[in-house]
């Protein structure tokens, strides 16, 4: 698909590889802990007091911000900034790159966000409500905290990165978009090391909970760990979560030259838009996005061994994604397994795509596919061949992972990562 254009327009088609992972999820603050919990069926949902709304279900992260930030930086900055710094520092350390000596103007930071600024705006309005809404009590930090580039900007300040650092707004497709954009920038030669992925601070804004509740899309359950249940007949909506996952991406030659450990290779991607509705997904466009990614990776559906779904546990959304997957994969892909990570961690919004990919990367090594938990009664409309329910399964081969992330206003993204073979 891409080949005709690229043959006519010689570009740098460097292979792009993943060399480091830093994350915080509601059920783990490192890839090892996160993966162990995904294989052990351990969810990370808890009760959270939300302003004006009371106790609600949420995915809360429990990393230690003071490992990489001064107390003042935590106070002045945002939660999304703090999560970005945590993930970036952990990813860089994991990559083994000699970061102190690395030219900082050759590092790019590309962070996907669903939204940014709501938390601080709500906090400030609440604060001035105590002063009869007199705006002279409005914080002078409001603007640096709410600018859309804040999470990436805080990471650049913390790391001393002087290369491009900005966010990518793409609703809940944003985590994938961070990686895809980074791969593009590496191929263009804009940077030599990319720190990329997605973050979310969404649980600190009541607005996102209230919005989903008004939409009839907020999960309820007496047992937190059972609340997020994509594909189950009793699913009743989204569990809102915070989280973050950033990767270091490099061109293969650079990674090999420094003897880096390689988690996987970016094989291809697809991004498109529904152009049909503010919130309702469009399975025809989703299927087009999947096909676009497969063509970009020069793969057939049967070449994919894990499909990590976006499904958020809304009644309609899950069915529509299954329809798209069914249209592309049909029944002729006996080695394709399908799973869902939100059943453990809820919906980490801008971090979702990046975190959900991370949870599956270890499958290249352990040949195990983590399941979708909380499926007591599979919705027949969500039945797909290869769906991994409630317990992990061993796979004969895991050479390719396909990661779906879709978002409001109809932004779709599919990212394909393959086992690295020299």
């Amino acid at each position: 698909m891409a080949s005709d254009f690229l043959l006519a327009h010689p570009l740098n088609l460097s292979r792009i590889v993943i060399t480091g992972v830093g994350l915080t999820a509601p059920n783990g603050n490192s890839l090892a802990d996160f993966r162990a919990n995904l294989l052990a069926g351990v969810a990370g949902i808890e009760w959270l007091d939300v302003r004006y709304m009371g106790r609600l279900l949420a995915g809360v992260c429990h990393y230690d911000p003071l490992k990489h930030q001064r107390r003042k930086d935590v106070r002045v900055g945002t939660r999304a900034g703090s999560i970005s710094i945590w993930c970036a520092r952990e990813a860089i350390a994991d990559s083994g790159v000699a970061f102190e000596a690395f030219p900082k103007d050759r590092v790019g930071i590309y962070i996907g966000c669903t939204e940014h600024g709501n938390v601080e705006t709500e906090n400030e309005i609440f604060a001035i409500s105590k002063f009869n809404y007199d705006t002279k009590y409005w914080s002078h930090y409001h603007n640096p905290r709410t600018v859309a580039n804040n999470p990436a900007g805080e990471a650049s300040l913390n790391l001393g990165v002087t290369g491009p650092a900005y966010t990518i707004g793409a609703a809940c497709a944003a985590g994938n978009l961070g990686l895809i954009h980074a791969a593009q920038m590496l191929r263009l030669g804009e940077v030599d090391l990319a720190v990329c992925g997605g973050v979310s601070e969404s649980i600190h804004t009541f607005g996102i909970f209230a919005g989903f509740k008004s939409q009839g899309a907020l999960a309820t359950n007496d047992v937190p760990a059972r609340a997020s249940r994509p594909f189950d007949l009793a699913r009743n909506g989204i569990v809102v979560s915070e989280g973050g996952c950033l990767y270091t991406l490099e061109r293969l030659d650079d990674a090999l030259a420094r003897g880096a450990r390689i988690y996987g290779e970016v094989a291809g991607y697809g991004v498109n838009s529904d152009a049909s509705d503010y919130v309702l997904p469009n399975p025809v466009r989703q299927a087009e996005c999947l096909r676009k990614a497969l063509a970009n990776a020069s793969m057939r559906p049967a070449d994919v061994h894990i499909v990590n779904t976006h499904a958020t546990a809304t009644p309609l959304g899950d069915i529509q994604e299954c329809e798209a997957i069914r249209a592309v994969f049909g029944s002729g892909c006996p080695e394709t397994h399908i799973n869902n990570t939100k059943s453990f961690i809820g919906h980490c919004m801008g971090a979702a795509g990046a975190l959900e990919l991370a949870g599956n990367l270890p499958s290249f090594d352990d040949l195990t596919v983590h399941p979708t938990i909380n499926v007591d009664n599979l919705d027949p409309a969500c039945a797909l061949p290869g769906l991994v329910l409630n317990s992990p399964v061993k796979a004969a081969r895991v050479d390719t992972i396909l990661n779906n992330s879709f978002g409001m206003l109809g932004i779709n993204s599919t990212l394909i990562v393959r086992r690295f073979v020299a």
Partner: protein
Amino acid sequence: MICAANHHMTNEECKKAVLDIIADIAPDEDLSNVKPDVRLRDQLQLDSMDFLDIVMELRKRHGIEVPEADYMRLASLDSCAEYLTPKFNALAAKS
């Protein structure tokens, strides 16, 4: 939220009130040895946004307004006490 002192405030109490604010806005700093006659910015890591925080917290916690033209008066603990103590006491006299 606004709680003006309800007794005559001394310069030392005023300095303590300012240090309490600084402890919150610069939580990494050691405040046990702040020299009252030395500019705060010369002995602590405080930037212009932090000074705006001091002004904001004086407003929020104590109902004290510091006009921009007077920001220089907050340079050291001594100058803070000289400038702010009468303001604290004027507020206390009103309450």
